[in-house]
């Protein structure tokens, strides 16, 4: 197994208030051909971690310290121009909202082709053929290249987003809640598609989600985040079946199980704070 990404001591704060640690000393690794899920509730810092990898943090936020080593290269040392060469080419990214992530006045074929032209210089018939192949790969008829986003369903739009993100055959894919806005049957299809593409292209996938069911289906490794910190990480079967940290245990007890047998138990934050202090 080759190490693809290593994050060391990543810390993100608001630019004006460096004492508030939104992401606090986060470290983990991702291997090629494997999926690591970052799971946590709103405000746990999971999306900020993903954005930091791509150097896409908003100007109000600041990466205080930490390294992002991708294929042996520290991304934090790169300038904007050098990062542009990595984004979309060597690291692909999919966002939550397939409705707002696509440009409504351009055909989906054009939008998929953009990164192929920019990064690989493809043009004309070669470009057309590659767009068609990509659409087929994500399960959309190639004739849909001339469609506008509003002519596609939510699931199809997310498939287009996936086609865009894998166009340049990146070594790593970051997927930030890619199925949260989708119906459950469509979600199952998209998860299956992502898993197949990951294996076929030997990509490393960093998958951000709040849903433990999704984690159980797709992850090899899990990173659990709480208030900006990693509270627990490890292989998916260990973390889900035998959680060690009180927060992970409490969070899993909140998830309705598929059999409906286990009673729900809300998190007792007072107790959790005592546990953390101890």
């Amino acid at each position, binding site marked *: 197994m080759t190490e693809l990404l290593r994050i060391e001591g990543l810390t993100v704060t608001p630019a004006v208030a460096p004492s508030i640690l939104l992401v606090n000393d986060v470290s983990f690794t991702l291997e090629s051909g494997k999926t690591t899920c970052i799971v946590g509730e709103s405000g746990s810092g999971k999306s900020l971690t993903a954005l930091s990898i791509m150097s896409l943090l908003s100007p109000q936020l600041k990466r205080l310290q930490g390294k992002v080593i991708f294929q042996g290269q520290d991304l934090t040392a790169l300038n904007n121009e050098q990062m542009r060469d990595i984004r979309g080419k060597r690291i692909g990214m999919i966002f939550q909202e397939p409705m707002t992530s696509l440009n409504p006045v351009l055909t989906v074929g054009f939008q998929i082709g953009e990164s192929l032209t920019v990064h690989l210089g493809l043009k004309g018939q070669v470009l057309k053929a590659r767009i068609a192949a990509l659409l087929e790969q994500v399960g959309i008829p190639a004739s849909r290249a001339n469609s506008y986003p509003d002519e596609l369903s939510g699931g199809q739009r997310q498939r287009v987003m996936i086609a865009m993100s894998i166009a340049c055959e990146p070594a790593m894919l970051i997927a930030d809640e890619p199925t949260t806005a989708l119906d459950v049957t469509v979600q199952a299809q998209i998860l299956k598609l992502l898993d197949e593409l990951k294996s076929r292209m030997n990509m490393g996938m960093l998958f951000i989600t709040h849903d433990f069911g999704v984690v*159980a289906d797709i992850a090899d490794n899990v990173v659990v985040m709480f208030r900006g910190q990693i509270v627990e990480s490890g292989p998916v079967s260990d973390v889900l079946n035998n959680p060690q940290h009180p927060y992970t245990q409490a969070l899993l007890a909140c998830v309705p199980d598929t059999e409906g047998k286990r009673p729900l138990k809300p998190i007792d934050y007072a107790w959790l704070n005592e546990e953390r202090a101890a």
Partner: protein
Amino acid sequence: MSAMNQAEFILTARHLNKTYSQRSGRFGFGHSLIKALDDVSISLRTGSTLAVVGESGSGKSTLARCLLQLQPLDSGEVLFQGRDLAAFPASELRTERRHIQMVFQDPFASLNPRMKVGEIVGEGLLIHKLGSAAEQRHKVLHMLKRVGLSEADMQKYPHEFSGGQRQRIGIARALVLEPKVVVCDEPVSALDVSIQAQILLLLKELQQEMHLSYIFISHDLRVVRHIADEVVVMHQGKVVEQGLVDDIYSAPAEEYTRNLLNSIPGRKAAAGDTY
């Protein structure tokens, strides 16, 4: 309807039909008709929870609105305690409405940002002229405390609360009128899983204490499994299947239901002995 049936089913909908006309074509000059409800019949047993599940566009939210007479039906009848709501004169419908309340999905959009929480929760009492001002205040306070908020919260505005707290305010607003039926339209789908568990437990406790009957609209099959006694599966405006939760989850009769249940994330793992 016999007297026994009336006691057994508090709310019954029979053969509901509702069609929307939608603009279509690239510039919206065309018209197409969407059947949001296609001969839908459901019955809510007194004191129980009936979940309506389906994907987007299945008509589940339209059903909720039609049950409350917030939207006119094309045809069909909604019987509340054996009486057809549509046949009520407008004034009587208004009085009856206090018995059928709604909890909405989005706790951010469903509370008036310019009203204090005490006013929001008390508005229904004011409209229905239930009790003196002092009695109303007492009821509001009691209800807010019951859902886990404090007296000081009455003077605050909605933006001062988190999503979970706002959903508690929405529940207090619905329940302060001591309704018999509460229609919950995706009440926990905007919430984090830990908050979701709190709200689900609160809803269950309140159901027992206040003898409530719930219509629970949801797309989350895991949540439904936990909260519902019976379930109605909807697809493209039609009822695909209905029955007891345990029966439908363990032995779905229809292909669509099977497919839906197989799509629940984490189910593959649950089938083995892990998680």
